[in-house]
């Protein structure tokens, strides 16, 4: 059975003392090279980007003038950037919720959904097959997903238009209409992520002792109550991590958007990542300005991630 305990930092490492002799060689060998690589390839580009964001660098010569915070001032008045941020905000509000709800639903159906005719806690029939199928999008590269869905959304020959017409409804032009394009891209984002979280939540559920569910079952709880009262609290850590990942994904969304719509029609699917790419490599070569967008993105992502870790903090549950 599970028991609650305060977060005391009682870890397996805490119980077993480290080998005292040779501690430093171990640390030096295993930690210093990765840290150096990380500083060189990750941290230093960051710092450079911060520096570049205060210049008017145009990217194809070594000359750049310091312009202070001018790039950030123009950013503040850039309608296209605000439009992209608004879209990111909608993604941030919807993609994590939809993905996690669907992921939890599928995972709990696979782990505990089956109840008819058998004693004990089992998943629905054919669970292994479903689990494999759900994971398919994760196996495909994002590029392939984007191209695949572009064809599904083909207004005349696409799978979706065909299905809608088959039931006698007029099919919209999906990616061609500002009213639908954004939601089409959002649907693909959810679709391509759900599978991974089904597996993640499924793995977390299998770590929950079966006796809990058996007890709940004996008490006559419905499936929904089981999910809400037992599964959710026990999976909270995992859900929180999923939330952070999905929030970061929602603030990015670059590859899917760029390949499916490139921000169009009429900027209705534009996201901040596409704006930045377009400013540096697309229709302009304003690397200084693009770096400023990048810096803004960095702080936004950081804020969202820290907030979602903070807000979701709860007591830890350990099984012993």
């Amino acid at each position, binding site marked *: 059975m599970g028991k609650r305990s305060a977060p005391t930092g009682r870890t397996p490492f805490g119980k077993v003392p480290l080998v005292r002799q040779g501690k430093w060689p171990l640390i030096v060998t295993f930690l210093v090279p990765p840290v150096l690589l990380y500083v060189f390839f990750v941290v230093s580009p*960051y710092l450079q980007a911060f520096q570049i964001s205060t210049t008017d660098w145009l990217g194809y010569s070594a000359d750049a003038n310091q312009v202070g915070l001018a790039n950030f001032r123009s950013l503040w008045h850039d309608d296209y950037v605000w439009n992209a941020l608004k879209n990111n905000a909608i993604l941030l509000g919807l993609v994590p919720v939809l993905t996690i709800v669907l992921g939890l639903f599928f995972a709990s159906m696979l782990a505990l959904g089956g109840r008819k005719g058998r004693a004990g806690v089992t998943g629905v029939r054919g669970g292994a097959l479903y689990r494999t199928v759900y994971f398919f999008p994760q196996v495909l590269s994002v590029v392939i997903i984007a191209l695949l869905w572009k064809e599904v959304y083909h207004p005349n020959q696409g799978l979706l238009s065909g299905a809608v017409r088959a039931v006698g409804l007029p099919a919209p032009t*999906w990616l*061609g209409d500002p009213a639908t394009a954004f939601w089409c891209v959002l649907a693909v984002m959810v679709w391509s992520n759900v599978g991974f979280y089904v597996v993640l939540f499924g793995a977390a559920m299998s770590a929950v002792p079966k006796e809990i569910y058996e007890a709940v079952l004996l008490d006559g709880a419905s499936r929904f109550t089981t999910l809400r009262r037992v599964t959710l609290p026990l999976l909270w850590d995992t859900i929180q991590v999923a939330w952070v990942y999905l929030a970061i994904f929602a603030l990015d969304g670059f590859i899917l958007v760029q390949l499916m719509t490139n921000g169009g029609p009429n900027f209705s699917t534009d996201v901040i990542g596409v704006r*930045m790419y377009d400013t*540096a490599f697309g*229709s*302009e070569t304003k690397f200084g300005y693009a770096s400023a967008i990048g810096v803004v993105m960095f702080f936004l992502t*950081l804020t969202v991630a820290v907030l979602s870790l903070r807000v979701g903090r709860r007591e830890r549950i350990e099984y012993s």
Partner: protein
Amino acid sequence: MNRRDILRRTAAAGLLATPAAGLLTGCATGGGGDKNDAATYKGTKSAQNPLGVKEDAPLEVVIFGGGFGEEYAKAHEAMYTEKYPKAKVKHSATQEISKTLQPRFVDGTPPDVVNNSGAGQIDFNGLVSQNAIADLGELLAAPSLDVPGKTVRDTLLPGAVEVGSYDGKFLVLNYTYTAYGIWHSGKLFTERSWEYAKTWDQHIALCKEIKAAGIAPWTYAGLHPRYMSWPVIATAIKLGGPSVATAIDNLEPNAWKSESMRTAADAWHQIVKDKYILDGSSGLDHKQSQTAWCQGKAAFVSCGSWLESEQKDVTPAGFNMTIAPTPSLGSGDKLPFEAIRGTAGEPFMVPAKARNLAGGLEYFRTMLSKKGAQDFTKKVASLTVVAGASEGVDLPYGLNSVVKALDASGANGFNWVYNNYYRKLERNLVDAACGEFFSGRTSPAEFLDQCQKGADSIAQDSSIKKYKRAA
């Protein structure tokens, strides 16, 4: 560490890694410099070697791996090494010109010849304003390789130099000669005994007939709707004369809202209002819409003369694709019906810091020789800016119609270059406006307002260098 900590730390790592994809300037401004100044290859100039090529200097050529492939470039390189057997040519092809070459420009070690084209093209405004491209003036003044008694400039078609010139300096060699017009299938039109309409009223009447026959009169690349800006601007120029284009290129106030542009936009609105556009076109990309056109689902499509090679794989035999100018609005038009937009396209450049700059210019001279140009036309079925180079070459049907249209257009041909000066204006802003207009969500006036707003935003942006051209 327990599972919770591991998960949390993974999250933290992910949190740091993802914006890294965002911060794109991994290799930054530092370290760039003039290290190559001393090491530029220079040979002795002579009558045989007017550009002063060092005969054993290596030459690096980067080709855009797009619709034309790269075989044509290998042939040009072979011609170069035939003349300079000691030179080693390094050839590569990529679709990502800007991403691949940006660090090398910063580092001061760019290749000697760059075919700056495609979706990953580097914005020329940025390159020119940073003095990153070499002046090709010397090349123009050099004698042609195989047309005796003429300089390279003399062998070029009219307009070829202007297109690549910025503030009077010829910086970009646009190698192909491209016509922009309205395309139809000769086969379809003969079968149905339709005739391409020369005036707008007749065009609308024809559209009505085509629609009645169960075919959509028009389709367009809804995901790249700027393709439809071409016939609208062309119609306006034919009505009001080339000054319409000059005003747009020079970002003059309200250039997009000129009387001619208004009349043209009003006219084109008819095909939207009367639903003469294939359903779902606004959701198609250029390939998908052109393919629908090749399948006979639509009668007209707006495109440049690369259409034939782009559609090679899906065009049915005997389709007979034919280019035609935009219909005239009426007898008041300043240019005749035959006038068509012809312009040099497919940009090549020699970076200012190329080590073998002379070799790059000489490579251009090879491309612009009659032999080089003829070989290109044979290999990729496209015209070049070299006058008369397509003579005696067996041209495919569509390209033949392009040659005829250009001949008929003659001195009435026109062009605009704002898309070269300000890539963002066409690619982003006018593009978005066209999408709204041709899917029926905006009126002609709103459409032109949106275009004008885009042009004004470029005009007001002090970080973008402005160019002017004479009428």
